[in-house]
């Protein structure tokens, strides 16, 4: 068993009478890619917001990151401990250039306090090259297309040198070729030793890159296991995948 980097017990979040998350227990190990799937409104993004402390937990639940209880910290302190995230609806800082956006991660993320502005510029260049952004740092964000924006968002998160990266639907709106590219990038990031929590609707991607998958429905965890277990799980099929997906997979297997 590898080291557990992020662990939560009894994680719940209510909005009035709506139970967005109920009693979720979870673990992410060092260097693992954990996939998170579920129908719309299952509480996936709420889950991310709870981990990054944009929302705070209900009741006696707790979340520990590297054995530090983080669920009462403000968002910026959580980020500085080494949790970085991207957004489902990407939120680049629009009045800045690409370089300045990535610099935000480098200046204020983990290790940010020990960097000089010179180091920050070096780091920005490094991330642009690492992700093959294909634009210079002086490009205005407005002129980027959706793929480049998503890559830039990743670069910003990586510039903070996180231990855990949370990716929220980075494949949404990309075409097949771009999805393949993005999968490669995620595996490349994972190869650096960064644990990844990956929320995704694109099944092909999540089944291929995840070591383990959690499935949410109506705020509850209904299944957890490796990709093959998940594909054959009855609950998951009725709640999310649908029987069509399973038969398609079977066909695929018999052909292969």
């Amino acid at each position, binding site marked *: 068993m590898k080291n557990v980097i992020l662990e939560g017990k009894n994680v719940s979040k209510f909005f009035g009478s709506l139970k967005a998350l109920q009693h979720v227990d979870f673990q992410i190990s060092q260097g693992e890619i954990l996939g998170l799937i579920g129908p719309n409104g299952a509480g996936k993004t709420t889950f991310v917001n709870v981990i990054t402390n944009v929302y705070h937990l209900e009741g006696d639940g707790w979340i520990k990151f590297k054995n530090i209880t983080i669920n009462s910290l*403000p968002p*910026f302190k*959580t980020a500085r401990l080494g949790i970085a995230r991207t957004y489902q609806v990407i939120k680049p800082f629009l009045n*800045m250039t690409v370089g300045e956006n990535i610099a935000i991660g480098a200046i*204020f993320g983990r290790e940010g306090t020990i960097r000089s502005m010179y180091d920050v510029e070096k780091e920005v260049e490094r991330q642009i090259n690492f992700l093959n952004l294909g634009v210079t740092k002086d490009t205005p964000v407005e002129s980027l297309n959706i793929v480049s924006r998503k890559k830039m968002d990743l670069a910003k998160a990586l510039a903070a040198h996180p231990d855990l990266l949370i990716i929220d639907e980075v494949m949404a709106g990309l075409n097949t070729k771009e999805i393949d590219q993005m999968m490669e990038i995620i595996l490349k990031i994972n190869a650096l030793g960064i644990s990844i929590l990956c929320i995704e609707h694109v099944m092909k991607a999540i089944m291929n890159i995840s070591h383990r998958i959690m499935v949410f429905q109506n705020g509850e965890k209904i299944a957890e296991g490796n990709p093959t277990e998940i594909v054959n799980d009855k609950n998951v099929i009725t709640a999310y995948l649908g029987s069509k997906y399973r038969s398609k997979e079977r066909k695929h297997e018999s052909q292969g």
Partner: protein
Amino acid sequence: MILERRNTIEKKRIIIFLTLIVAGFLLIPLFERGYILRFLTFMFTSAIISQGLNIIGGYSGYIPFGHMGFFGAGAYIVAMSMVNHVSFPIALLFNIVITIIIALIFGYPLLRLRGAYFAMGTIAFNGILKEVTVNFTKWTGGGYGISLPQIPWNIESVNTFFYYIMLGWLAVCTIVVYLLAKNPVGYALRAIKDDENAAATSGINTSKYKMIAWITSAVFISVSVGIYAYWMTFIDTSIYDITPLIKSWVMLLVGGAGTVMGPLLGAFLIESLSELLWGNIIIFHNGFLGIIIIITILFLPGGIIDLFKKQFKWSLIREEIRKNKI
């Protein structure tokens, strides 16, 4: 490589240009010590206020409509100290310390508000300070105001003295904004302006940086109004009036919010224009000023500074106009 070289050449040009302007302003009192000097001193005051609004409104996107509170604080702290025989520099020092304390006390609750609520909240803050001033008659003179001691020099020396002090403070403020903008503080404030939640999850301590912007802007403004009070030798509660603040907002927007030189450019243009129009077309001068402001905002939403950024190229300006669908 070529781009870098061009940048350094451009930087050199800008530095030479700025040095010439500063030298020009430093030399003016040798030739003219009357009307123009007083006009320029007034222009500097507006520019400082505009620069103060720039750091919080232009960079961090928090719009304070009640910064007249700091006009009052600055003026009254200097006036009350000087009436009690404190020398001018010490009075300014008091001013800075007390302004920081006031800004901390009010900033803590106010900066938790966002958008329009923050703007409204700051108006309430101004109301509180005004009420305190009106009612503590014993120290503030209430509605009678306070007369400050006069400098026993001839009028030309007095003009020159305040001209240099105001120019100096304007230079200090501008250099501070320049340094903040280049460093993490500037990055943090601009990130907060775009998306405060995203900024926080990127590791930015938003409360801290908003407080820095709020206090910096308060100190800029209250010191400049403190100097202004000593210059005018009389202040009353009309200092809490919103009109001068609105004028400084206009200067900021016309010049270019969120840039270092924007407020200075705006102050120079608006003050000169309003002075020219007021002198020549007394009947409709505010109307003309309004028209000019509307035209600028329609065609140069980023402010006059955009003209310099786009190097006066019509094609680039047209593109910007098209993008804004005018």
